[in-house]
């Protein structure tokens, strides 16, 4: 069986300054995978490069053994919450419905089946009662859940998520994590940029440490080590202390 995700020698540069440099990353089996690394490590850029949203200087990507262009309908995307204008005149349900646009393709309009499905996806993130609200009236955590509901509506097999837990409260974080776990149990792969080192061992079973170059990748237990973190984050000790606590707490966390 072809690997779920095979990133080969991706290089991205802005004006010759490398943002990603010869990054190789292969995820063989469906995983709940985290991409971690310091600010400016190119975490979001890696996701965007895979999806073709930023031009790459070199490299190739295969998803389920085929090019990304051929696999678009099996790929889901959750952009950073700040990337859109929440003042836009659409309802919560409208945004979730956009998840069905990929399967619909150009020109075809969403019908009853898509509306019903969008409602179901919204119910899964617990925001049914907000369906007709304008999206700007939601809290940050709720907006993040709307984006997640839109991703569910994509019915993809591999999801790329850019900081799905950034700026959300602990309760929302738990709801999101439960959803990711459920997706994973359904055989899906999630590749998420994650910023909170303390929760990595608890939430993710696969981890890729990135700092312009790929430092290490593999199952969290073997890869999320102090040595690898030191290589990735350099001298940023405060972060490493937090990570050390997380390592000690390990899977003992609730």
């Amino acid at each position, binding site marked *: 069986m072809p690997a779920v995700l095979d990133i080969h020698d991706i290089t991205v540069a802005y004006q010759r300054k490398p943002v990603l440099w010869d990054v190789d990353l292969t995820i063989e089996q469906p995983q709940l995978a985290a991409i971690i690394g310091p600010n400016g490590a190119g975490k979001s850029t890696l996701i965007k490069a895979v999806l073709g*949203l930023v031009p790459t200087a070199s490299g190739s990507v295969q998803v389920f053994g085929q090019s990304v262009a051929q696999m*678009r309908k099996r*790929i889901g995307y959750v*952009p950073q919450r700040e990337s859109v204008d929440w003042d*836009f005149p*659409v309802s919560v349900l*409208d945004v979730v419905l*956009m998840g069905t646009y990929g399967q619909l393709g150009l020109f075809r309009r969403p019908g009853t089946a898509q509306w019903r499905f969008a409602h179901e996806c919204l119910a899964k993130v617990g925001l049914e009662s907000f369906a007709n609200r304008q999206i700007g009236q939601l*809290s940050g955590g709720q907006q993040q859940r709307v984006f997640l509901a839109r991703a569910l509506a994509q019915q993809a097999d591999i999801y790329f998520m850019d900081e799905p837990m950034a700026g959300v409260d602990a309760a929302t974080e738990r709801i999101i994590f439960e959803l990711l776990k459920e997706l994973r149990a359904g055989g899906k792969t999630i590749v998420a940029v994650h910023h909170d080192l303390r929760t990595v061992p608890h939430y993710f079973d696969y981890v890729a440490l990135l700092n312009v170059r790929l430092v290490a990748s593999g199952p969290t237990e073997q890869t999320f080590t102090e040595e690898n973190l030191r290589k990735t984050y350099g001298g940023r000790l405060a972060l490493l202390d937090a990570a050390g606590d997380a390592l000690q707490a390990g899977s003992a966390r609730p």
Partner: protein
Amino acid sequence: MMLPYNTLVVLSGVGLLGASAGLVGAFAVLRKRSLTGDALAHAALPGLCIAFLLLGERNLTAMLLGALASGVLGNMVIAALVRWTRVKEDAAIGTVLGGFFGLGVVLVTGIQHMSSTGSKAGLDSYILGKTAGMTAGDVYLILAASVACLAVVLLLFKEFKLIAFDGDFARSLGWPVYGLDLLLMTLVAVAVVIGLPAVGVVLMAALLIMPAAAARFWTERLGRMLALSGAFGLAIGVIGTSISATFAVMPAGPIIVLTGTAFFLVSMLAGTKRGVVAQSLRHRKFRRDLAERRLLRAALEVSKLSGNATFTRDDLRQRFVTTSAELERALDDAIRHGAIEPCSSGTYRLSSEGKLRAVEIARGHRLWEALLVEYPELASSVADLGSVSITPHVPSEVVEDLTARLRAAGEWPELAP
């Protein structure tokens, strides 16, 4: 009343023009490209003049094609400046817009003084617009362009909506976002160019932006905003033209745009969703509701203390510390809603209906308070002061848990015996 044929032609022409500018402009505004329309309009002037010079006569179609060509060229120069130099977009737009427009004015003035044909060409009317000379042929051209704009917007509504809201997501679906953007900008260019004769290059962009900006105050839905923006554009065109017809010495563009300004101002004040008045009314109503709820809670507490369940204003003031004006208003509201009944000599009591309502409010309040203490993280994301009950906002197990805690602590509000 029968309108003269010429008036009818002009009214329908400018009306259609306004409608398509409003429709297309709404997407341009939402995609944050409204200044592109402004640059396009100003940059169109030299092309228009050059087309006239090449043909040696006033042929509207050819001149508008020339306008379109130089408008598009202007925008390409802007894109190139942003892409290849360190000039930022706003500076690039300002520079190109000014340069092209300056060249256009020089050409217009040159043509005016050139020969007998030049002075009759009336090219200066393209700067600030003129509706009087519009012919049936011009209206057909505008009609065709408007129908085309409408058809494309209807066909690609879902696509334009997505690229305007979340372009990266659209790209992740493999959609040709660049092509769709180009198509949208083409529609903007068409709407701008057909509007040049009537409104003029200086103010055409306003006709693109104002209907959309005004429509936004009335709705939170894209479909409705587009329809409304189109309707506003139509009305602005028709009304503006009618007014300018009675002031023949004035150029048409400024009159039409001032009409648009009036639409915008009225919408800004009176718009039902985002208008200033509606918002302050909503805020006032929220405050009054909140005050009435606090008053009823206070009334519930003080009525339990007195033997006959009556209370005075001063009793209320003990529990509900606020300005006298707010207390009076809340009391008036509660009496008007039948929750509180006046008794003899300055005393009041809760009506039977008021008691039920007060208990419901008190319970809701206790539950919100308890939620903030026991589930702070959940509370911070769901807390809603506008809602009496927490039930629609939190899972039922949480409500049951909180209720049980409050009962155990003897803090669960009960009906007075």
